[in-house]
């Protein structure tokens, strides 16, 4: 007997609009001052009416395009009705039977080493308003619960995947892939601590019995997972729990309806929230306060023209264009669009993608981590780093010297504005004499001069005293600090041998 986990995700993404989806209130995350970002509309006061924020729809369409979804030409708004204190109108404005997008897919990398991938199908993505937040007394003294409506009305895209995921790791990866995609597009900040990206996971197992028959375990929806790690842990736990439960009870999907569980990160377990998924009747119907939206081809073309390259595409391109390994490409891509752009600019300037990748993934990331800085604030701009790497690839500097320059540039940066420039590279190289001398003419001149000035040493050498050449090399090197000692030695020897 063996089993195959079957997992689908419902991902909620807050769009990064300045204002809410149906009113002009700010969407800023502001938990310390509850209910200040509110107005009659998002408070659900009598007589207040919603008006669609066009930017929210535009960002939502952008999201759906990135998920390779079909975009509906005609879409409308429906009321999803239920009572809850964080839902001031008693209904959520959402989309029911005509979502603005459907039928998409996301490529999920299934092997980080080889870059092998598999499509995960998207059923639909629809736009809706977020609810507020109930704040309960956690002192155990039974004080009143409070409601904060700052978040109420924040635009939210709900992305529903097919149950195409096959492991907890894949579930996590899918979420990471979406995170990368949506932050690249700048449609969401995807800040999971602030709830900008959160997901529900639907999990069950397909069990192949020893006689070859296949049965499914009851479906469980794990609600409100707000980190990559928790998603993976929760699904992992749920798979093990269902496997154990099946072995003990033999219950299948036919014996129990879908149930809802929550994840307790402290204990690492999922716990039951609703035993029987009550056939919730949300009484959806078209919101008569809002007009349906018709999206034109021109609008779609305009939105499409704003799209940036998707991270998955960029990852593949970095591999082919800059000869990066799948692993290096992923490391760079996963750091976000700004770092990927930083890498690419650097690679272009130095003409060596592999070297650029090494510098960015090792030196730049290390310094960013030490300084707790983002790439946007990193003091070395790509042109400076690119120029530095170019000196290595053009054999003007050794890697060791280049690291020294890199460190010096960063140290120097601490007490200066603007950021370090290419000119400073030259200053440091000159000051420390780090340049590799490749100018044969300069070397020839220096050697000729040294030979002229040291007839004794020359005579000694020609008399068979090999060590005498060392003194000559030392003098040349004194003049040409960045010179390659080996090259100098060879040239002197050639010269003295009558070459």
């Amino acid at each position, binding site marked *: 007997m063996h089993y195959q986990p079957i997992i689908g995700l419902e991902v909620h993404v807050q769009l990064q609009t300045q204002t809410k989806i149906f009113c002009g209130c700010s969407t800023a995350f502001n938990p310390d001052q509850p209910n200040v970002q509110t107005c009659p509309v998002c408070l*659900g006061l009598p*007589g207040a009416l*919603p*008006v669609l924020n066009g930017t929210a729809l535009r960002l939502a369409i952008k999201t759906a395009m990135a998920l390779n979804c079909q975009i509906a030409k005609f879409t409308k708004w429906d009321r999803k009705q239920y*009572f809850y204190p964080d839902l*001031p109108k008693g209904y959520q404005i959402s989309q029911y039977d005509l979502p603005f997008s459907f039928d998409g897919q996301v490529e999920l990398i299934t092997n980080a080493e080889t870059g092998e991938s598999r499509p995960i199908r998207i059923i639909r993505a629809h736009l809706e308003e977020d609810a507020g937040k109930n704040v309960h007394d956690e002192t155990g003294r039974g004080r009143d619960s409070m409601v904060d409506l700052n978040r109420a009305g924040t635009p939210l895209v709900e992305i529903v995947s097919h149950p195409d995921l096959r492991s907890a790791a894949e579930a996590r990866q899918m979420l990471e892939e979406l995170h990368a995609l949506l932050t690249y597009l700048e449609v969401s900040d995807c800040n999971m601590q602030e709830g900008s990206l959160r997901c529900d996971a639907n999990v069950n197992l397909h069990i192949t019995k020893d006689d070859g028959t296949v049965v499914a375990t009851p479906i469980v929806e794990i609600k409100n997972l707000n980190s990559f790690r928790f998603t993976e842990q929760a699904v992992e736990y749920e798979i093990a729990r269902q496997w154990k439960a099946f072995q003990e009870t033999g219950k299948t999907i036919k014996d129990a309806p879908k149930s809802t569980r929550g994840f307790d990160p402290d204990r690492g377990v999922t716990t039951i929230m609703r035993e029987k998924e009550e056939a919730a009747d949300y009484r*959806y*119907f078209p919101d*008569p306060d809002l007009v349906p939206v018709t999206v034109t081809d021109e609008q779609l073309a305009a939105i499409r023209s704003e799209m940036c390259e998707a991270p998955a595409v960029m990852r593949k391109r970095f591999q082919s264009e800059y000869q990066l390994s799948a692993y290096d490409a992923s490391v760079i891509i996963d750091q976000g669009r700004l770092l990927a752009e930083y890498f690419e600019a650097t690679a272009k300037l130095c003409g060596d993608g592999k070297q650029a990748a090494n510098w960015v993934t090792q030196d730049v990331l290390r310094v960013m981590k030490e300084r707790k800085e983002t790439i946007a604030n990193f003091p070395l701009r790509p042109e400076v780093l690119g120029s530095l790497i170019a000196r290595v690839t053009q054999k003007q500097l050794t890697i060791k010297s280049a690291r020294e320059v890199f460190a010096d540039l960063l140290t120097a940066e601490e007490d200066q504005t603007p950021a370090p420039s290419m000119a400073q590279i030259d200053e440091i190289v000159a000051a420390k004499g780090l340049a590799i001398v490749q100018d044969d003419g300069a070397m020839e001149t220096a050697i000729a001069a040294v030979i002229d000035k040291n007839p004794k040493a020359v005579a000694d050498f020609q008399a068979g005293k090999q060590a005498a050449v060392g003194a000559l090399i030392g003098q040349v090197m004194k003049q040409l600090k960045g010179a390659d000692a080996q090259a100098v030695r060879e040239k002197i020897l050639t010269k003295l041998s009558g070459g």
Partner: protein
Amino acid sequence: MSLCDLSAGTLWRKLQSGEVTAVAATTDYLNAITQFDGQVAAFLHVDRDTALAQATNLDAKRSRGEPVGLMAGLPVAIKDVLCIKGEPTTCGSKMLQNFRPPYDAHVIEKLRAADAVLLGHTNMDEFAMGSSSENSAYQVTHNPWDLSRTPGGSSSGSAAAVAARMAPVSLGSDTGGSIRQPAGLCGIVGMKPTYGRVSRYGLIAYASSLDQVGPFSTDVTAAAALLEAIAGHDPRDSTSVNQPVPSYTSTLDQPLQGLKIGVAKEFFAEGLDAEIEQAVRTAIDVYRGLGADVREVSLPHSKYSIATYYLIAPSEASSNLSRYDGVHYGHRTESATSLNEMYAASRGEAFGPEVKRRIMLGTYALSSGYYDQYYVKALRVRRLIREDFDKAFADVDIIAGPVTPTAAFKIGEKSDNPLGMYLADVYTISANLAGIPGISVPCGFTPAGLPIGLQLLAAPFQEERLLRAARMYERETDWVTRKPALA
């Protein structure tokens, strides 16, 4: 002589010319309220000081030589369904007994900008559900023509206040006839504009796809002025239509040439009182006398109006009224030990029986398994009703008919008979379903002395035509000069 004896249009013109001050008009109307409202019970809340202060400011503005707005200090009573910043706005419900909106409805902003004087809030059926004011949580309003009878509803107080000359004009809202029906029963002018002509922002929703704010007046002229003041696009209402507002008052007195009037045979069917039919047919003869071409039109689906309306309106209402849950504002029960209990008890205690009935009707109609056969089907019939009108208006300019099947009925007569009450709106509901404008104009009295209304309907955004047609009739008759003995 009190300024209340002038017709609203005359008073408005005198205010515009400066012949009468806003303070004088406001004072006279406030006095009339003091004198008559004990018997009529039209007002829920009168803010005398604020009204007088507005009038004083306006007069001062005028005396400084500054231009004054279109309303020029005309006092206006406001149905309690429209939010006025800081003033009690209850919608006739216990649910909102202590609610004071932090904002003005769009039409209130427009009235302030047009220099109207706001007299206060008028009584209504709870959440605009009803046709008699008997569903108000606070009081029953009496018909000034016969205090034992209803003024109609749901804009009961706004109609009765104008009929009793306690206000020259007022605002109501019309979802299935809630302006035209009480206007008809009270012998005054009442108009429901095209859906989308007037912003619903700040109008407490009953049925969002049908609700529309409109004017009451003792005559057509001031109704035109009031509509002109409140109409227009409002970006805060997505269903508000962005079309210029004609100057209704400047074209009002121009008679329509070659007017084609349609008479829908369905509006003269069984159930229409003979005395109403008589008065309406006589009114249509007046148009004939003015050279109008009167022809029959057919609205074959109008017989489904009430059934259609009582699926769509309660469906929307069941959703619109979900926000009254006792959590954020409004009535909250004192006795609840769980969240669900709090919801159930708060709503159970604060909603009246008709509101509960419609919430249940609507909840049922939207339930899964019933949605298609009720709500969706009603939407289909609604489209057929609209198409009937489209066809008819391809042929005629105006459709004329009765407003109500009977004159004002006795208070209490239909309070145990909800279906009978629903039938009071049989002729008005189809205009809401079709989204077209309609006006009720006084056209006579029953032998018992109760007013009878003539309803004129026009194609969408033909308010100007409708007002001119109404004014043509008004000039030929003297019904608007009649007022109840009480006033």
